[in-house]
């Protein structure tokens, strides 16, 4: 599952079919809107979250294929379902004031945010991030970001190894101790990756087209999702 998730967080060539502005704006707007709606709006926004989820799923499936998408998001959905299950059990036991509708909306919201975040990873390449941050005068941050993004798949794999090793080592106890080896691993990897940056030079900023005609479809989709909030 972790391996599939790692593959899902990689930039996809099909992303270049859209302009950079749309590739940035669409997922970011969906994430921000989801958070704002959760904080500000009191009534349920199921249609908004559901339409956002359908929209991002369609785009992710276009990028990676449906099978890969489903395999990749298993882990995320597992966590969300687990949360949902705990809430429903608590609800049945009368331990929470949350209604079933709120619990379901919460799960939908988390999924919508997670899918939009994955879309952002797939749509904006490392060299484009470097371009964006360098243009804003934040070259240092651009390099750190590039390093973190390139090592993410390997870090996820290390996480799976540590998870297994620590769980068996302590017979299921002291689970939080997993953070220590992971931290050490991240530090070592970061230093090694810094070597790579110096030897091969940082990823060159790539200026890509900001606008493309077909972006209009994406903006239309986003507008429709946003309008659902008025329903």
């Amino acid at each position, binding site marked *: 599952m972790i*391996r599939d998730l*790692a*593959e899902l967080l*990689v*930039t996809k060539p099909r992303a270049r079919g859209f302009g950079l502005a749309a590739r940035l704006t669409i997922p970011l707007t969906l994430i921000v809107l989801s958070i704002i709606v959760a904080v500000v709006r009191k009534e349920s926004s199921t249609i908004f979250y559901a339409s956002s989820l359908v929209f991002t799923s369609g785009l992710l499936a276009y990028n990676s294929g449906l099978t890969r998408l489903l395999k990749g998001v298993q882990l995320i959905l597992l966590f969300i379902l687990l949360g949902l299950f705990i809430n429903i059990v608590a609800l049945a036991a009368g331990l929470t004031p949350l209604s079933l509708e709120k619990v379901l909306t919460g799960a939908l919201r988390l999924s919508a945010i997670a899918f939009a975040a994955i879309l952002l990873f797939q749509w904006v390449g*490392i*060299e484009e991030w470097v371009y964006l941050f360098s243009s804003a005068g934040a070259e240092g941050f651009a390099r750190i970001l*590039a390093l973190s993004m*390139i*090592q993410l*798949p*390997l870090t996820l*794999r*290390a996480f*799976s*190894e*540590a998870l*297994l*090793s*620590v769980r*068996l*080592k*302590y*017979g299921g*106890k*002291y689970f939080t*101790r*997993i953070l*220590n*080896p*992971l931290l*050490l*691993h991240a530090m*070592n*990897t970061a*230093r*090694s*990756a*810094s*070597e*790579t*940056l*110096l*030897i*091969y*030079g*940082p*990823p*060159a900023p790539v200026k890509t087209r900001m606008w493309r005609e077909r972006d209009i479809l994406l903006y239309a989709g986003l507008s429709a999702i946003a309008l659902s909030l008025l329903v």
Partner: protein
Amino acid sequence: MRSEIAVQLEDLWARYSSGEWILKGLNLSVSEGESVLIVGATGSGKTTLARILNGTAGPIYGVEVKGSYKVNGVEALGLDPFILGLKIHVVSQNPYIHFLNFILEQDYRDYAKKVYGDRFEKQVVEKTLTQFNLRELRHRYFFNLSGGQARRAATGKALISDPEVLVFDEPFMWLDDKGVDEFLDMLHLLKRLGKTIIVFEHRFNRVIRFFDKVFVLRNGRIEEADLTALLRAAARKTLGTTLVQQPDKGELGEVVLKLENVSFGYKEPVLNNISLELRRGEGVAIIGLNGTGKTTLLKLITGYLKPWKGRVEVRGRFIYIPQLIHLFYTEGSLREEVVKLCKSRSGNEACVEEALKALWKEGLNPDKPPSKLSHGQMVKAAVLLASKTVKPDLILLDEPFSGLTYVDRFNLIKLLAETPSAKLLTTSSREFTSLLSNWRLLVLENGGLKPAEALEKPLNAVFSVELAKLLIGVED
């Protein structure tokens, strides 16, 4: 052979943040087109030297360097690592860190563009992909490459700038036997291309004859080894060695692991109808090339993966020692590891005492942080910690020999022989499997397990250990 000096180190000193000097007036001269092997014990400074050679010791690790380091007669200390990389390129232990783009071809093109500009970028990349037989990997994600493929890909990338000198820091780390052969072929190719080659490696048995010279890094200095004399001395010592013995079949206990017709795969089937039974006290080594499903099999046993069909039954407690051994350790010192492990099985003071005694006996200071241990010590300590505290019914070891020196391998086999738990280890190399006496050797290929024979004679492995001891100056 040409006689110009490619790399010259004169009176080189190096230390980390005002600590003790690791390199102490080191001198080394490597001629153009020459190939040299540098061996040294763990902690002798091989990696520090590699970092100096690629120019990152100062900027990344804060190493203070004194003396002279010249490449083709030009002073290289303080040079920008990118500029230095056009003359001398170091392929580090971990080949996966060489990439800055997920897709291999794109990564090569990005680098080629920086070196040659837009005009020749494509041409150079195509040539490199063909030369190193990488065409079929060009569209792959770097993190999905096997260890051998990643090493080949990292070497290919290093050659894009056409450096005159290539340095490999422990190139056999994570390589299976096939990968080692491929790497040797690559060394021959590089030699034909007239490259100067420097290799830091402690698993040298199969490659030692390739090199023009062998140097030993010891006490902060480098000296050339008299290989003929050392080979003779190692042969003499080998004849006087006693081989490690595992308990014979009569002493085996109850069944702790049973696999019945287990099948599993990801996109394609990986394991087909695997059956295996393991008893307490028994040792099983599964030999297989990279990507044959060894780690997958271990993950099925641990319950991390569920089989497509068949049954996995494990009785009692078991421990998994991962290939990335540092992920096993969670505490600030070995002593804290012992206390935590004893607590996890409600062990008392006696449990702690027994484990600490065992660590001291093996020369491991319990107050040392695990991160300060060498790779070999980490593997050894993990086995000791498990066997003396948790006393598991089964210990699973994923590629424990990878990255170990010959001496560390020998010591680990001895330690495992004394461990009463059932042991299941995977290895991608047949090297040293001959020393696993009374172990069941199985080979994993085409999704199935079948009995295997150790291809080398036990004395050959012992010879490697003795030669390593003499080379790097380890006492018995």
